């Protein structure tokens, strides 16, 4: 690493106090939001505000204390950002529960989400405590990759029913679970491990065509394999969003590992080709594009395709305007799945453009912090993993919010930390744990030389062995 030498003299501060201060602000958003929902919808502060606020505070403080203990140099901004989004999401989901209740549909999404958040924080803590050095993960590259593929294939087994036409769910007992959410984290780890080992081969061989270095034919194997997997997800699971997400993720990591824009060109053309072919041949993809281009023509259709969801979201966002209607003053439950995929429409309607931009800034800052971790990380594996996790976040936010606001065709993905959905929430907490672990390693002062050399010896021995 060329950058690590320049960083040698600089020691990052821990800034745990700053993190605690930001966490208090995040809690104010979460608990304040919950209270505001009660006041706005029911005219009184919810009776369980103390219990709810206490529980939220306990979770966040627990996460903070664990960071102080096991990752003291970790980035101080990530956890407050995540806590803000998660708290806001809970408040809005609670609002939507109340909205459904007014329509005579009893739901308890907010309570379930709080349970999932608890599980997410537990896994977050577990990941930080168990995984003291992220490089350990590199040892299990292929195992993790295989696990990811298995998880992705799982919903295709015949005894799992498709939900809303997409085969991305598995049902165990009363719980539904989206294995793809976990698989995406595992894929990042597996890609990072694979690329660290093969980056030289992928980077150096190839020929030059029109100012672009194109890779060798035989090195195209993995990218073609990933392309096929993405297409498979699209065709067999009918999940446009995940397909786009996985392939985009792989391309970005490949580009970062090899530093060759040629991969982007090749991958981009493969993606465009695949997307075009899918659009030509798959009815549901065509419908999505038509609805994206002319949603108002399909509004209140008697038969499919329907565009009610996207049109109601458009109406809701417009109705919200700059500062929103205020909790309880809008009608977010007109949009189907307002608690999950379309939670941004609910936020835009009742809290306005102001909140939408604030949420986007939170996401932007998470991506920025993650990429900063990638920049200062001292090892290639950490860099790749951080970049991968950052990109997966950025692409997911872009795909889902872009879909809800009709910037791009709608694809089903959850909004990280905001949407109701256990698998997604838990997986995202683990992503943050991994990022914090990498950043702790990156920001930690270089240990005394003997230990450091021992460690790098280990690594070089491994590389030579291959």
């Amino acid at each position, binding site marked *: 690493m060329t*950058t690590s030498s320049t960083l040698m003299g600089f020691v990052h501060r821990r800034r745990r106090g700053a993190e605690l201060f930001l966490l208090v602000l995040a809690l104010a958003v979460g608990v304040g939001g919950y209270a505001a929902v009660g006041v706005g919808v029911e005219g009184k502060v919810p009776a369980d505000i103390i219990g709810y606020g206490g529980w939220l505070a306990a979770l966040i403080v627990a996460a903070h204390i664990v960071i102080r203990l096991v990752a003291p140099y970790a980035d101080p901004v990530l956890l407050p950002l995540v806590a803000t989004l998660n708290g806001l999401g809970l408040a809005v989901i609670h609002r939507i529960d109340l909205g459904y209740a*007014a329509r005579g549909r009893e739901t308890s999404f907010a309570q379930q989400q709080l349970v999932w958040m608890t599980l997410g924080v537990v896994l977050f803590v577990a990941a930080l405590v168990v995984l003291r050095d992220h490089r350990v993960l590199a040892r299990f590259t292929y195992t993790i990759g295989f696990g990811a593929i298995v998880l992705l294939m799982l919903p295709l087994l015949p005894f799992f029913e498709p939900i809303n036409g997409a085969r991305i769910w598995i049902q165990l007992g009363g719980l539904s679970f989206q294995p793809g959410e976990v698989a995406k984290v595992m894929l990042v780890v597996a890609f990072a491990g694979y690329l660290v080992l093969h980056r030289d081969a992928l980077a150096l061989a190839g020929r030059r065509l029109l100012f672009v270095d194109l890779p060798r034919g035989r090195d195209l194997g993995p990218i073609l394999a990933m392309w096929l997997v993405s297409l498979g997800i699209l065709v067999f699971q009918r999940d446009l969003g995940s397909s786009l997400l996985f392939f985009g993720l792989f391309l*970005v990591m490949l*580009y*970062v*590992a090899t*530093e060759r824009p040629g991969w982007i060109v090749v991958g981009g053309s493969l993606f465009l080709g695949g997307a075009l072919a899918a659009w030509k041949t798959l009815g549901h993809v065509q419908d999505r594009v038509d609805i994206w281009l002319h949603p*108002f023509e399909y*509004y*209140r259709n008697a038969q499919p395709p329907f565009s009610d969801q996207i*049109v109601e979201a*458009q*109406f*809701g*966002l*417009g*109705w*919200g*305007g*700059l500062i929103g209607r205020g909790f309880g003053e*809008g*009608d977010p439950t*007109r949009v189907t799945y307002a608690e999950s995929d379309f939670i941004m429409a609910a936020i*835009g309607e009742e809290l*306005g*453009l102001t909140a*939408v*931009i604030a949420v*986007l800034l939170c*996401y*932007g800052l998470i*991506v*920025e912090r993650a*990429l900063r971790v*990638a*920049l200062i990380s001292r090892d*290639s594996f950490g*860099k*790749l993993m951080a*970049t991968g996790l*950052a*990109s997966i976040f*950025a*692409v997911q*936010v*872009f795909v889902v*919010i*872009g879909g809800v*606001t*009709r*910037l791009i065709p709608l694809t089903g993905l959850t909004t990280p930390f905001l949407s109701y959905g256990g698998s997604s929430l838990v997986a995202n907490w683990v992503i943050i744990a991994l990022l914090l672990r990498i950043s702790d390693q990156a920001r930690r002062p270089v240990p005394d030389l003997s230990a450091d050399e021992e460690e790098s010896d280990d690594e070089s021995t491994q590389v030579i062995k291959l």
Partner: protein
Amino acid sequence: MNRPIRTVSLFCLALFLALMVNATYLQFWRAGALDDDPRNQRVQQASYSSERGAILVGRTPVAESVPSEDRYEFQRRYPAPLMYAPLTGYFTFGNATGLESSQNSVLSGEDPRFFVRNLVDLVSNEQQSGGSVELTIDAKAQRAAYEGLSALGDGVEGSVVALEPSTGKVLAMVSLPTFDPNDLASHDFGAVDDTYADLLDDPGDPLLNRAVQTRIAPGSTFKLVTAAAALESGKYDSADSLVPGGATFQLPQTSGDSGVVDNEGRACGTDEITFRQAMEQSCNTTFAQLAIEVGAEKMLEQAEKFGFNADYLEDLPGQARSVYPSQVNPPQLGQTGFGQFEVQATPLQMAMVAASIANDGVVMRPYVVSEVQSPDYDAETADPEELSEAVDPQVADVLTELMVSTVDDGTASPAAIPNVAVAGKTGTAQRGVPGEPPYAWFVSFAPASDSQVAVAVMIEEAPGQEIAGGRLGGPIAKAVMEAIIS
């Protein structure tokens, strides 16, 4: 690896900027267009749930919003539903009629005149509330008209319109059968649908405001227009001028009974009679000949000066145009002279004819809304507006004299008020369907000089009553005029 990571950062920045620009476009620039989409239920629901302004007669509301316990927060209430339903219309989710529809921007508070007020509401986080609309209606005249028409019995179909001649203010507007807008404004939408379907199926068309939406043959009341045209032509200049008379008149280009006009036994002389007698006895033979004398072109011109073939009512939706045919042959022209053939008029139109004669020949635009009040009670008063000059003042005076004689000594005597000079004209119009009873009409104004009120009464159906303009319509007109004059 840091160079590509920086490139990726820039790429991510571009993604987020695209999202922010798009969200801003959607929620700021496009928001207005989205709100204007008629299918946008949020906007409709908000307007349905907001505190709507009242419709007032004097200081008394005839439509108002009262707080309700359900999710819509306010319930529209009509305290005098049957009497005022043709005016107020009704207000239900996604639909409104009558003044509720035409004055919606004021009642909902979205009127541009309330812009500053709404801005203050927005900043102070108050909910936007609507302005009120005060009507020109005179409560006593409205009650007299409603009770008079209702007194004709069950199943009566008809309308009464009263105008203030000098301004065009509508003092009373009644239409029967009527409906209860409270039933249609209910928040129980299923019941509303049922009620609405029943009202649509009702053969009496209770949802129709007959005062402005029903046009039928005006019959003999149209003789005022024919007389105006004849006097304007200059050939006759006083009530004592001699006009053609006769017990029967064979329409030109016809032969046999079907082309013969008679006077149903009223005394109309043999050859020439005075204008006064022709009007008093409502001589069809006279007015058929006068129309032919004046000519189709002048008749059309005169009718249009009174408001036929035109839209003039801005305060209520769905005004039907009264019709004077533009293409007639001589026998048809003769029939139009006494308000038959294709001549059709609304009660409002005939009230305007009477009002403009009372107003020295000047036709005023009829209006129902006298004042618009913002939620802060800043009022804006409507100004009377001149539509046209139908006849010269001298001609108006002669017409008035003819009509006064008709009340004093002729067919319109049931409208006579002691010690007040009343001008009036009856009408009994044939439907053109053999065996069906005719329509009854009555128009009048009082006092004859410097008059305060002009009335038109129209009765389409009155089961069990013998239809005759003077006998049925006269007393109603009299009651309405008395309510104003006293």
